[in-house]
């Protein structure tokens, strides 16, 4: 049974967002990530697993250590969707603009008559 993972699920959690922020600066091993948080190491491992399944990080083995690296290109998907949502509100302003033009024409017309 494979659960569908996507980038939205990855960033829907504050701890996972914090992990991505940390890894965006430099790759870290699992222990040093876990040390930065007050939650258990198991909990952090689970977050890392989800991030990996969402393709936001990749794990590389170096000797005994497991290093996590961020793969940030996936995040573009989110910003594209935010841009679409923003457009919805921009449309409202476009409509307002058009309506103001109409109204100004109407009223100017009345004054001239």
């Amino acid at each position: 049974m494979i659960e569908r993972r996507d980038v939205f699920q990855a960033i829907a959690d504050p701890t996972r967002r914090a992990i991505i922020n940390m890894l965006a600066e430099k790759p870290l091993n699992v222990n040093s990530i876990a040390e930065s948080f007050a939650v258990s190491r198991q909990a952090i491992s689970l977050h890392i697993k989800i991030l990996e399944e969402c393709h936001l990080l990749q794990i590389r083995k170096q000797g005994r250590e497991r290093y996590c690296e961020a793969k940030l290109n996936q995040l573009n998907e989110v910003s594209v969707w935010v841009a679409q949502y923003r457009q919805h509100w921009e449309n409202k302003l476009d409509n307002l603009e058009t309506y103001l033009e109409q109204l100004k024409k109407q009223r100017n017309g009345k004054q001239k008559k």
Partner: protein
Amino acid sequence: MENKKNNTADRELIITRTLNAPVALVWEVWTQPEHIANWWGPNGFSTTIQVMDLQAGGKWDLVMHGPDGKDYDNSSLFKEIIPFKKLVYEHVSNPHFTATILFEEQGEQTKISWHMLFDSAEQFIGVVKAYKADKGLEQNIEKLELYLQQKKIVKS
């Protein structure tokens, strides 16, 4: 160490526009039901304003009638009204957010700034994702582009 900053950048949307109309007209068109019904809804929608009680604590209910025949109820509460300057409302129905609209007089023009603040980054992401799932909106954007092109032709 949680990287949770004290700012709101991950749960807000700000859009601004300079409108070619004096602030009195922009305010009128924003605050009077008979006007707002003419521009509020997405293209293809019509809007019925049921209540618009323009004062702090006042109710603002509207229904957007979709091109598919569906009605979408929207409930808000006005939080702050400063005539010709500022308007704050809380969208009480889904999705929950607080909108602050600032009007800035610039001679015969008005700069409008529209700020929407969602409860949390999680909720904002949910809204964005739900929006993406709505295919009708993509069509609306296409329609709008077409409409704007026509508008430009008329103007030139």
